[in-house]
């Protein structure tokens, strides 16, 4: 078990080294002549107005909240799915009941209008 995660760790390091090497080579070879106009924010030729870190639609926030509920709950389903063959029919039905509660939650959110894009 420990060995497996060591392997993943090594893979992660190698996976970071490859793009870093590409950028480093580029940094050595490429020219560097910065000037204020070149570094200004690109907005199709317009000068940018105001702060760039703007506040944005709260709608995204609601979808993120809905997602959070579902994602946490679906993680509980993985052990159930792995052990499905060894479970009795009753346990399988219990799992289905759990999913039905999730779907009822989705239906409630739908009815409340949280899934409408306003």
């Amino acid at each position: 078990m420990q060995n497996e995660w060591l392997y993943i760790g090594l893979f992660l390091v190698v996976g970071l080294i490859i793009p870093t090497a590409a950028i480093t080579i580029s940094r050595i070879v490429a020219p560097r002549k910065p000037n204020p106009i070149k570094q200004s924010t690109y907005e199709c030729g317009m000068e940018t107005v105001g702060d760039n870190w703007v506040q944005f639609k709260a709608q995204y926030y609601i979808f993120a909240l809905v997602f959070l509920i579902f994602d946490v709950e679906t993680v509980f389903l993985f052990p159930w799915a792995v052990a499905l063959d060894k479970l009795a029919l009753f346990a399988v039905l219990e799992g289905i009941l759990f999913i039905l509660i999730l779907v009822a939650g989705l239906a409630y959110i739908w009815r409340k209008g949280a899934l409408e894009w306003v």
Partner: protein
Amino acid sequence: MTLWNNPTNFIADWLRGVFSGWGMAEGLAVILVTLIGIVVMASLVMLLDIFLVWVERKVVARFQDRLGPNRVGPFGLIQPFADIIKLIIKEDITPDGADKVVYNLAPLLSLMSVIILWAIIPLAPVIFGVDLNVGALYLIAAGAIGTLSIIMAGWSSNNKYALIGAFRQVAAMVSYEIPMVVALLIPTILAGTMGMKGIVDAQSIWFVILSPLGALIFLISAIAELGRTPFDLNEAESEIVAGFHIEYTGMKFGLFYAGELLHAFTFGTFLGILFFGGWNGPLPWGGQYPLIGALNVVIKGLFFYWVIMWIKYTLMRIRIDHMLAFNWKFLTPVAFVLLMVTALMDKLLAGTAPWIYGMGMFLANILVGWLALEAARAYARRQRLAKEALAQPATQAAHH
């Protein structure tokens, strides 16, 4: 154990012998051999990535009735190397007010999140990095790092377009992750394990036959997670120019591009492994001869990569409210219903003959898909009638 039955272990044993012959400690030799294996694997993946640039350009050209690159080398095969040289010698511009650390880290994470997925891909029964027993969860976790890199890029670029692109990617990712998780639960149920190798081993009948709807849901949510058309709102070039990577130049842009292509190919490979039998497959003896098995996996990966490209260059981009409505009001309910039906059928049909089991599963999937389409049609008709009823009095008032 010969070179043909077990090439990786054969070479690894030989290398370990060589290192031990030099007087190296046993543990150190093992780690060094593993490291060499990882570097070879990652390099092959990157070489494939370079080849994918050529495939992408050539195939899109054919879809659009053009010839594509055909000047540099035979069939334009050297073209991607010319592209890379161009990208490397371009100046790297950092925009004013960018958050430098996050800005520079984003392209690295973008490519890294794809490369680490290859750690769990079993190319053949004996050629695999590591057979994690939580493979399906690892796939989701690594995919989330890719999305994180897009958010980092969009937020740190100090550009409104980039920020909007990142927001859209977050919305797409948080929505389509649910059907993807559920689609991953279906092979898990059928195989009884989350490990990729176990899932391939369990496919005496390909899972696409047992669960065609599951494979379709996985493909759709994978396309959404990749951010390719029709779900490419995060880089919609006609409205927010290039979205999250608008301010990136030179090799940093190249890394995003390479990451996107490799991501699409990797998800194609996962579709092949999860639903289309992995190494058992178009070519015979994939299970006995590892090299043929690896070739099979790559062939399936390239085929599904082509399918994803086909969808990309055929469909138009859809609006974000349509995209989210499609997910939350159609795909997610269908996925959950399919999960329940699969679990129940798997339990009820356990112990029956394979052809009854397969037939039952297949018919259950078709039924769920058909009912879902009928329900969607009824819902759409109700919406349309309501809209017409709303529009009716207004036109009558205009007549008087």
